[in-house]
Each structure stands twice: as structure tokens, then as C-alpha cells.
């Protein structure tokens, strides 16, 4: 080794270290499964629904509102939460069904505040009704609690191109976990995808567009399709040639 090489070696090492430090942290894709626990709570009329909703664990509020997307990857046209569906289809109270259906569970900062809103809507609705609408021929409402278990998928991305590739092939539960679950239970109001793209890659506007994708327009697969379109546009068609 000559003198010049000895001088350059530490500099080269420092350069590499700084280069690695400057790279954004990789995006690690997690999927999830939902363990559904039966709580033994049931309601046969709208007052019971309200009272049971008040005392049910927050995991039940989550199950009947947010994780609907985990059970139905494609929205099939029914109301997007179980409370609205039950009231409309089993109690046959279309008015309350519609009022509960428009509540966007992702617009609330906590499950507690979401619960308060739902209870308030039911309370206000039944205050003027005598008797309180109840199931006559249909099924009672059964409360179920959700336990979401995260599972690493083994996929991770450092660049937007890699991210696009992973997104195209990952299990739909991963889209749920990062786009929806993270907003509700892990305190990331824009979702993991938007945060990583905005913060790690300085693509704030792209992150904002991803955060604004509405899950009600088609469920998890529609989120995937819309994200892929946005990424393809951002990557200038580069990813389209190599991937999906």
C-alpha cells in the first residue's frame, strides 16, 4: 500500500458512512391478521345497541367500523360499517342506517371520540321515537372485538422504485396495516405510506396525495391501484416498464 492509498482509506470509509447515513430508512412492509373475539354482547333494539356500544371495549368499536376493510377487501356497495348495516337491514330503520353510514371513522382522533359520536347519533335519533325500533324478524347485533396481529412480510424498500415493486405484490392486509391501521392505532394520521414517502424522500406533495386516497371508494385493492398510479406518475413511467 503506498502513501496516497493510506490517506484515502479513512476518507473513503467516512464517505461511505455518511452516504449510508444520508439514505432514508427502508420502508418495512408488515401484514396483519385479525383475531376476532366474540364478546357475548348482543342488541335487539336501537337503545340496546347504544347501551352495549357504550360499555363494549374499544376493540369492538374498531372491529365494527375500521376493520370492515380487512374482512372485505373490495367494498361491495353495502354501508361501510356494521352498525349502519345492521340498523338498515335487520331493524329496517333506513334513516338511522344512513346517519351512521356517513360517519367516517378515520376522521376521529381516537376510538373513544368515534364511539361518542356514534352513541350521540343513536341517542339523538331514538329520543323522538316511541317505541324504539327493534328487530322483529331479523338477527340481533352481535358485538365482536378485534385483535390485530402484525406479521412482517419480509419485504422492504429503500427507493421509490423498490417501494412500488413491493406495493404491487404485497398481501392486501399490508395495505390495511400501513394505510388504515396506522392512522387509528399508531398515531400516524396520514398513514405510514404517506409519512415515509413525504419525510424520507422529500416528496411531500406525493405523500399528501397518497394520504388523501379515500378507502371507501373501493377498499384495499382500490388503494393499491391508486397508489401505484401516483407512484408511476412520480417515477416517470420507469416502474411501469419493470413491474405490474
Amino acid at each position, binding site marked *: 500500500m503506498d502513501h496516497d492509498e493510506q490517506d484515502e482509506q479513512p476518507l473513503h470509509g467516512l464517505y461511505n458512512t455518511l452516504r449510508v447515513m444520508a439514505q432514508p430508512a427502508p420502508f418495512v412492509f408488515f401484514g396483519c391478521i385479525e383475531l376476532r*373475539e*366474540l364478546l357475548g354482547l348482543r342488541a335487539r333494539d336501537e337503545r340496546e345497541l347504544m347501551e352495549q356500544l357504550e360499555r363494549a371495549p374499544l376493540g369492538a368499536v374498531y372491529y365494527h367500523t375500521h376493520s370492515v376493510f380487512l374482512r372485505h377487501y373490495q367494498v*361491495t*356497495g353495502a354501508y361501510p360499517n356494521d352498525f349502519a348495516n345492521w340498523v338498515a337491514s335487520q331493524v329496517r330503520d333506513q334513516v338511522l342506517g344512513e346517519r351512521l353510514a356517513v360517519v367516517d371513522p378515520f376522521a376521529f382522533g381516537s376510538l373513544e371520540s368515534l364511539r361518542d359520536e356514534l352513541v350521540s347519533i343513536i341517542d339523538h335519533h331514538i329520543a323522538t321515537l316511541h317505541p324504539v325500533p327493534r328487530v322483529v324478524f331479523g*338477527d340481533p347485533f352481535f358485538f365482536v372485538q378485534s385483535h390485530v396481529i402484525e406479521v412482517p412480510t419480509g419485504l422492504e424498500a429503500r427507493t421509490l422504485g423498490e417501494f412500488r415493486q413491493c406495493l404491487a405484490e404485497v*398481501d392486501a392486509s399490508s395495505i390495511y396495516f400501513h394505510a388504515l391501521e396506522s392512522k387509528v392505532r399508531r398515531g400516524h394520521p396520514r398513514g405510514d405510506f404517506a409519512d415515509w414517502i413525504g419525510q424520507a424522500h422529500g416528496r411531500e406533495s406525493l405523500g399528501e396525495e397518497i394520504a388523501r386516497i379515500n378507502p371507501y371508494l373501493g377498499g384495499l385493492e382500490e388503494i393499491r391501484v391508486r397508489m401505484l398510479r401516483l407512484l408511476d406518475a412520480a417515477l416517470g413511467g420507469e416502474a411501469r416498464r419493470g413491474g405490474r
Partner: protein
Amino acid sequence: MAASTLTIEDYREVAPKGAVDFLLRLAERARGRRFLHVNSTRVGGGVAEILSRLVPIMGDLGIKTAWEVIEGDPEFFAMTKALHNALQGTEQAFTETMLNHYLEVNQANAQRLRPAGDLVLIHDPQPAAMIEARPPEGKWVWRCHIDLSTPQRRAWAFLRRHVLRYNAAVFSLPAFAQQLPLPQFLVYPSIDPLAEKNRRMTKGEIAKILANLQIPDDKPILLQVSRFDRFKDPIGVINAYQMVKRDHDVRLVLAGGGAADDPEGAQVLAEVREAAGRDPDVYVLDLPSNAHLQINALQRSATIVIQKSTREGFGLTVAEAMWKGKPVIGGATGGITVQILYGVTGYTVNSVEGAAYRIAIC
């Protein structure tokens, strides 16, 4: 494709994007653990069908999975059939002798099988009392596939004291569960898209099987596939067909098989044959329990699939028909209601008249 030749990799062609990789990752958490299934029959009925596919897949995922089947004499299976009916709401009479025999057979099976594992999953009421012989290690979970929503009180009281000794229970629908002081979970059953009963078939294969079964394909076929059981209401299906037949030239096929643990099947089959009479457009097929390809061909050749149950555990024949793109007219009971998207994939009905109306306009 035979079950033994399938691997988890084969499911990539039918599974949603990323699902197989996700399962492989998930299984890493349970790799090397011992999982034991116990039920009452190796052939016939939905549970045996699920296990015949699930057990090899679990093994392929690296979980040490075993499947044991209890043995019993005709008196035992007559008693468990009565227990099954009682738990689903039909009044039955039980003598002390019957109850004691149930316990003795369970005890004998526990001694013979020595069930043990990190997780032991006991399916349905027949082997439920084996819990009394559980070893200290491992978790035991009772998997209830039937509708327990309105059981005969005495039958449930008898079974409940054994269920209480489990670590947890699993039900197919929230409505099927009972108040129990142990964790209860919800797991929907499922079908195997690569099984003989569901795999793709060519038109030639289907035509050949129909010819072997001597069923002409010159008229629309209405089909119900189920074991010959009163809860499946096969007589109601014949009555609905007769109403439809006034205006539509259709053919009805009732295809069923016996299950080893169902001694009532032959009697119901005789009643169905009598109700069908000499109508040349009604075909009552008593198929062996391994007639999966025949069932597949019948479902694929049907115009409408019917599952007019009055009580139903889950009704996997509905999922099978929908997998093949067939509209389904199902009884508004049990798991049928959560499978059919009303007006999209079919209709649920509450009467013979309702079934006839929906068949006619479908």
C-alpha cells in the same frame, strides 16, 4: 390433483396477491409446534372435508400437524346424532344410558389416542368429552361447527360442563355462540379451490361425468348438494321445484352422500325418493363420500344452485357454487346469510314459496 401432491406453492395460482408469502411468514411463528385435530369421521361432511385439505397444508407450512378420528359403535353415533339435532334446536330424548355411553366412548378414545400437543383442537360435540382426559401441558380448544343459538336446554347443559374445561372455543358465526366463561373466537370455515370438488374442469370432463350419472343436459338444472338431512330441507326443495316446473321446463338434481357419523341419512333418503315419485326430471343421487369430481361437474353444469337449509352450520356448498360463478338460492339461516350478497350473488329465502319465486326469476 390429489391432496398429497399439493404444496402451499400450488395455491399461488388462485390466492390473492401476496397471500401465500404472507402465510409462509405467519407460519414461521408456529413452526415446529405440535397441532392435533380430533373429529368423528375421516370422510363425509364439511369438517372431514376441511381437515383433509387443511392438515397437509399446515404440515407443508412447517407445523407438526396430526389428525385423529374417534371410534364408536352404532349406539354412540345414534346418540351423537341426537345430540347434534338437540343442540341445533330439535327436541330429543336422552336416557342416562345414552349419556353414560357417550362418556364411556369418549374415555375409551382418549385412552386409545392419548391426545396431546401444543394445541389440541377438538371438533364438534362427538369427541368433546375427551377433555376430561387432557394432559397438563398444551392448550385445548373446542371448535364448534354447528349452530348452537337455540339448543335444547338439557342437551346443552350436558355438553356445557365439558366445554367449560377448554381454554377457548371457536364458532363459525357470532349467532352460534353461547354464554361461556372462556374466550370465544370467530373463524369462518372455507373451501379449497384446488380440491377435486372445486378445481377447474373441461367441458369434456363435465359432459362425461353427467353422462355417467345419466343426467341429460338438455334442460336447465336446479341443483342441491347436501347430505340427506332434514335440516337441509330436501323435501322443501322438491316442493319448490314443482312450483317452478309449472312455468319452466327444468330438471332437479338432489345430490347427497352419507357421512359415517350420520345414521339418519338412509331414512331421509328414502323419504326424498318417495317425495320425488316418478317425476322423470327429478334425480336423487346417493353419491359416495369421495364423489368430489362428480359434485364439481354437477355444480358447474347447474343453472342455479340451491341450499335451502332450515338450519345450517355454515353451508360450504354455497361457497363452492359461488366459486364456480353460480347464482345461489339459500335458506336464510346460519352461514348462508353471510355468504350470499343478496341480489348480487343470489338470494336468501325463508319458505318453499320464496325459493320457488327466486328460482323462477333468477
